[in-house]
């Protein structure tokens, strides 16, 4: 058994290079690879082999984590396509989108301050629906249109949406805890 550390995660897991992923195939491939590279298998071998198996196991786990989460998978596809998503540098989202984000945050803040669990749960449901729509758009942009510039913008949007999801979860946890 050996793993080519230069091949991309999709090749490593023998999956098509696409945003839409078969979760069960991904998980099955992960288990298969994991058992093949598990350091226990190399325990009786020289140190150099042990070290190599550790590298392989790390690579396999990193690959799984990257492909498993939709946002990480999308960002990885952009990297493979040579497109910088600009998540650290691009601050110029559409003003309309940012205004919407601000309104969401205000609504969460107010509901949290007033202890309105029901209102937070409503926001949570609305946001999940919204996130589903945005992810569907991302799938179209990446897998059908191959419009990576547009996909980079959608990835940035999803990052705000995930942050908002955390804020709502936090607020619910604080009120219910």
């Amino acid at each position, binding site marked *: 058994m050996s793993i080519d550390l230069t091949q991309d995660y999709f090749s490593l897991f023998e999956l098509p290079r696409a945003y839409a992923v078969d979760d069960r195939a991904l998980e099955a491939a992960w288990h298969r690879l994991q058992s093949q590279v598990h350091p226990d298998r190399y325990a009786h071998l020289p140190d150099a082999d042990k070290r190599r198996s550790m590298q392989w196991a790390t690579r396999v786990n990193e690959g799984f984590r990257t492909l498993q989460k939709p946002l990480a998978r999308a960002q990885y596809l952009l990297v493979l396509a040579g497109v910088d998503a600009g*998540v650290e540098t691009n*601050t110029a989202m559409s003003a309309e989108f940012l*205004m919407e984000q601000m309104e969401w945050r205000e609504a969460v803040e107010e509901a949290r301050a007033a202890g309105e669990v029901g209102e937070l749960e409503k926001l949570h449901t609305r946001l999940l629906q919204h996130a589903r729509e945005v992810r569907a758009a991302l799938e179209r942009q990446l897998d059908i249109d191959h419009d990576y510039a547009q996909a980079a913008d959608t990835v940035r949007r999803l990052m705000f949406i995930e942050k908002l999801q955390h804020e709502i979860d936090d607020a619910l946890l604080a009120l219910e805890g």
Partner: protein
Amino acid sequence: MAYSDKVLDHYENPRNVGSFAKDDEGVATGMVGAPACGDVMKLQIKVGRDGVIEDAKFKTYGCGSAIASSSLVTEWVKGKTIDQALDIKNTQIAEELALPPVKIHCSILAEDAIKAAVADYRKKQQA
């Protein structure tokens, strides 16, 4: 991570929090966001007929450093012309607040907010 005293001061006593009515004369709005941390920042300036910024307000959803950066910027732009306001650089903000390297993007966000507000002002002037 420890915040500097200046960050804490702005965080605990933020200056100029709030909003102007966005269609009032001389009011311009800059909206920016940082995808990596999900911070959203709104900076508004109120510019007099002489082109000097008379007042500024902000609203920021983000970490302490992002709030401090925008609070500081509202103080700095007051009394400046819009061209002078554009000279404010993120490095000055980061230095004033003693931001650690991982928080530099907060100061970049504040600088970009000034640019966005000035761009909105100029667009409104032409309209």
